């Protein structure tokens, strides 16, 4: 590792990189439990974050890439393959459900929405098994279970923006951060659809 980053700094670096630009710091991307302002200041001082907005500098992206490369070199090829392949059906399902949700929305179809929420709940069990099984070698990924689970709970309670909404840390948004994280860990490209 080129330098020592705390786990919280690493986490924020990842989140900023996946989000491109961090808007209002806060709980929007599952960061409610950390002092985002202080961490941004630290990362800025180290030259990883731009001065005028919360986006990574080229140096910040390079540092992040180095950490990913070094941290996950320990994964065996078999582990990578299983992590990648076991994620694929879950990813197909989340996309199907997101699309079904939007179709239901367009028709204002509550039964359809209910089916999607039930599907997301089912998928969440699948995700938990995935994180405890094939993805267990990267323990920190469990943070996505909490993040996606929180979105599910909000959606079930009637905050429907938490399914695919873009202005909150929705199921869809958090899922795509997980997907992005996996692609970086596994050095894979997205699957063509």
């Amino acid at each position, binding site marked *: 590792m080129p330098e020592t980053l705390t786990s919280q700094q690493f986490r924020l670096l990842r989140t900023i990189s996946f*989000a491109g630009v961090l808007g209002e710091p806060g709980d929007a991307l599952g960061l409610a439990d950390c002092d985002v302002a202080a961490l941004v200041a630290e990362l800025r001082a180290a030259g990883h974050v731009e001065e005028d907005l919360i986006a990574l500098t080229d140096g910040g992206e390079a540092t992040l890439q180095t950490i990913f490369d070094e941290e996950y070199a320990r994964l065996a090829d078999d582990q990578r393959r299983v992590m990648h392949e076991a994620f694929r059906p879950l990813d197909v399902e989340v996309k199907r459900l997101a699309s079904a949700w939007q179709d239901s929305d367009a028709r204002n179809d*509550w039964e359809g929405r209910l089916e999607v929420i039930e599907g997301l709940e089912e998928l969440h069990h699948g995700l938990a098994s995935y994180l405890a099984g094939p993805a267990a070698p990267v323990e920190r990924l469990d943070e996505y279970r909490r993040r996606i689970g929180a979105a599910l709970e909000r*959606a079930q*309670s009637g905050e429907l923006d938490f399914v695919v909404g873009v202005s909150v840390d929705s199921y869809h948004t958090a899922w795509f951060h997980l997907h992005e994280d996996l692609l970086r860990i596994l050095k894979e490209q997205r699957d063509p659809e």
Partner: protein
Amino acid sequence: MTADPDRQFIVDIAPDAPQDRALLGGKATSLVLMTKMGAPVPPGFVLTTNAYRAWAAEGDRSVIDAALDEGLERLQNRTGLQIGTGVGGLVVSVRSGSPVSMPGMMETVLNVGLGPLPASGAEAFAYDARARFLLHFSDVVLGLNGAKLDSIWQETLSRDGGHVDPQSVAELEASFRREAADAGVAWPESPDDEIRMAANSVMLSWESKRAKLYRKMRKIDDGLGTAVTVQQMVFGNHDPRSGSGVAFTRDPNNGKLELVGEFLAGGQGEEIVSGRATPQDLETWRAAEPELFARLDDYGKQLESEEQTVQEIEFTVDAGALYLLQSRAAKLTIRAAARAAVEMVEAGTRTKPEAVQYAAEHGFDIGAAASRFRVAAGAAESARGLAVGGGVAAGRLVASEARVLELAESGPVVFVAEETSPKHLQAMQASSAVVTMRGGATSHAAVVARELGIPCVVGVGGHLDGERIVLGQDFVDGDLITVDGDAGALYAGDHAELDPSVPAEDLLLLEWAQSNDRSAA
């Protein structure tokens, strides 16, 4: 009648009953309205939501059983028929009825109270009704293994001329009874038991996991509870002049004012709903039964006028006699809702703000109606991909997130990427349309663009090559491009023009919505 209105557990379905959805549920309230109109409704009574709440809070079945006995006693007196005397006696349906619509979540049990039939002597359709009851009751009320029941059903029932033979119904009953014993579930020992167990099952369905989740999602009070409607059965499977149907007071696809729907000759209502049988359209039935059709049409018009919403009516014809079983607000397409809303204003049954609200409840998007563009005639298509929707927009084509944010200050921008991920969100939010070279209808770009309500075409192919953006033809950063998200097509240049063919009802709704906003401001 008891003095405490909270202890009012039984209400007869009759013209003098209160039209109180909270007490009777939606289904029975519509039945009360029908009786007021003089429409033919089979006699029945309602176990009210008060009864449900007492049952849920006190856990005391005896209160409910006593209320149910009282209701049945009154129903037997009204009809002059007795429960448990076969098909010539009183046979009932036991239906849920919640104050709010909970589609597909609550139970209904038909053909209840027949009891075991004699080996011969009953009318042929009675055996058919009994067999249907046994299957549904064992599945829904007793909770026995559905796949197992189905396989027993297939093995046991032999049908002759559309009717099941009495012997095989007796065998079916014996087999299901054994299944229940094996599962440790009590089998109803009398027709009264059948009714009590069915009513109990309906009330329990309010507490199902699915129903609870639905209410949580919609922020519906768990304490509302369900009513249970017990109503004399009419038999759509009675004879050749019988059947069941569903009718809409306007076409649910386009909103045209005409009675449309389906009719299943010789069938019971649940077969239409389940899709197990193929019904005929209502026009065909009309040719066979013009008088019944005319009466149904007339009741439909009255119901729509009373309820001020397009109605979906369940009806049954029993030996040539028409009965209305339910009427509720119909599910409509956006187009149908917009047309119906405008026509109701023209007919004077709705105000303009109510019409706007009605259309919006069915998904009509005022904002989209306000800015409907189309591609000008003669524009040459440069590339085609998968249509995600969102209409038509034109803007300057840009492939970098930073350039999007810069150029969007001075005019519309079309963002193009090989594919998108969360890091492109800001760029997409600032864009008027999105194009991707890879990805399908459920890709990140498609979902986010639909969420943002902007035109999007995905999977166009092409590539980025230094300064060149290859999308069927070469573009460079800042070139004008038109995106038709509905057709999945791209055009070089700005060819977006206001669509003069926007339906007249959309323009009216838009005008009414804007005048609402002005008067509210």
